[in-house]
């Protein structure tokens, strides 16, 4: 999906979603709470949490929300890739201090849903997402890296 769908949740959040399934409405629990119970399907990871602790439970998880306490804290980018590399196909949401100029990189790391603290300008986002014709690296998205285009 190229452009996001804007969704207003029951909790009053505005989500930008790059997936067209129904928004998961179970509140996300903390990693500790998740590991301490068996039936939660939504987890919220703080920036310092180890995403690998979720890997053996991915089958039961529909939503992972990763927190960005400040836009400078890049740990969530690695957490997202780790989850996608392990095959997680549920919703991966970046929440908190998420800036419009960061969303293209976050998309590449596997995020497909965004809950920015401050609203992002839709026109700017659309422009940014279409800006780079192709990336240099293989990442968690489907975009084909330049070296693959060069060598097939």
């Amino acid at each position, binding site marked *: 999906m190229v452009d996001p769908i804007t969704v207003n949740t029951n909790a009053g959040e505005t989500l930008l979603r790059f997936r067209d399934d129904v928004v998961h409405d179970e509140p996300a629990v903390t990693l500790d709470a998740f590991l301490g119970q068996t039936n939660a399907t939504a987890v919220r990871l703080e920036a310092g949490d*180890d995403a690998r602790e979720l890997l053996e439970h991915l089958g039961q998880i529909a939503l992972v929300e990763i927190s960005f306490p400040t*836009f*400078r*804290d*890049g*740990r969530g*980018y*690695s*957490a997202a*890739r780790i989850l996608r*590399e392990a095959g997680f196909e549920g919703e991966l949401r970046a929440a908190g201090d998420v*800036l419009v*100029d*960061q969303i*293209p*990189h*976050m998309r*590449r*790391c596997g995020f497909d849903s965004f809950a920015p603290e401050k609203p992002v*300008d839709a026109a*700017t986002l659309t*422009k*940014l997402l279409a*800006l*780079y*014709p*192709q*990336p*240099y*690296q*293989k*990442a968690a998205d489907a975009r084909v*890296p*330049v*070296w*693959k*285009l*060069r*060598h097939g």
Partner: protein
Amino acid sequence: MYRYDEYDQSIVDARVEEFRDQVERRLSGALTEDQFKPLRLMNGLYLQLHAYMLRVAVPYGTLDSRQMRMLGHIARKYDRGYGHFTTRQNIQYNWIKLADAPDILAELATVQMHAIQTSGNCIRNISSDQFAGAAADEVADPRPWAELLRQWSTFHPEFTYLPRKFKIAVIAADEDRAAMRLHDIGIQLLTRDGVLGAKIFVGGGMGRTPMIAHEVKDFITADHLMSYLEACLRVYNRYGRRDNIYKARIKILLHEIGVDAYREQVEAEFAAIRDLGIDPPLAELERITAMFTGPDFASDAPDTVDRADPDFAVWLDQNVAAHKQPGHAIVTISLKPIGGIPGDASADQIDLVADLAERYGHDELRVTHAQNIVLPHVRKADLYVIWTALRDAGLAEANLDLISDIIACPGLDYCSLANARSIPLAQKIGERFAGRQRELGELKLKISGCINACGHHHAGHIGILGVDKKGTENYQLLLGGSGAEDVSLGKITGPGFDEDGVVDAIERVTDRYVALREADERFLDTYRRVGMQPFKEAIYG
């Protein structure tokens, strides 16, 4: 040399548009300065004491005459007619207007240049050996690997908000001309059983806590280089400290958890990602390598040089190095004239060296981490005419690796972080020692105007650190550092000095060295043999 294809060009062009849009949003107020700062920094745009400073990338220090002329053009059109070559093999302009920055990037893009990731908490410009492709002692040209790394690190989606900046150097010889082990990651190419691969060092750096990089991987082949480096970076991105900017470099992580624990974590991460298809095929390295095969050297170039002109002979002995090809030589053009500003070049000088490269040097130039310029491939028969042209332009100082070949940061004359001025001190030292520098031999002197160590003072045979002492500029003296293959960190001699005092102290140190030296010992060798004490006595009596 590497040449962009349509993909490379489209990415750099897109960056110009992206930055133009970001500048417009900043000027309109849609972006706050706090939000704009990391965006502009990732394009090399700093706000300094007096103006914006733009740092332009010179990937692995290599450029051609057309690119060099563009650097001169930018100096003339958008700055005050000069530029400053940096210890990261880049060039920076100190008097840039924010509104001009997008146009400058657009002009750079026309000659396959950019300012991408020349600052910010991301992977910076990849640096390398300035003699790459010309040196007799290399196992391979390191630049194809550096170009592979340039592409991999450009807009890397996972590693753009690292705890702190991240610097990588690649070399391919035992002689280390790039201070490889003082980088966050240092890569040394070597062959094993006939296969070219890389040894990986991690956790070096200068700054306020200098450390020498540890060997983390003894051999990795090209087909897994990227996934291995992703593992190295991912461990850092996840576990590097973010609570304190001064403890956020990867060297601190290695120091705190230990190199063995770090290596284990990297290996676990590498095992998880090595087969995910992150690595480009070897055909990509081969494609790049084919562009670095080097010029067709004349096989019949005469190998002798007429040394009749004594001034020329001095320069020849000091600034010209052996080339792998008989009849050829490597010329280092000193940007350290006595009394000048280390690393500065005027637009006219930039044009002149571009002309020399085009006419006599197979159209190739290099920037060195010691802030000089190199013509890597010239015929010995052309050395005299090159020297004559350099001399007429004030560029023939015969001081490579001598005490006046000073690395210095911009210091308090430009930099908002500095505690003390570096440039006037470098000028005074040059003037004091100009008459006897050849007698002192190889002596690498490096000056930083604050603890951030941009002037590499930890790695100077003699290092100087500017500090603020109750509101006045004060200089500490360090001895015994080296950024070369015999890497070491300098030690502080004792109490600091004012500007004239530190020049006097250096004179006492060098006098003592001359008295103590045996045979052809360099200053550094004598220091290592006799230790700090004799020099302390000479300085403080």
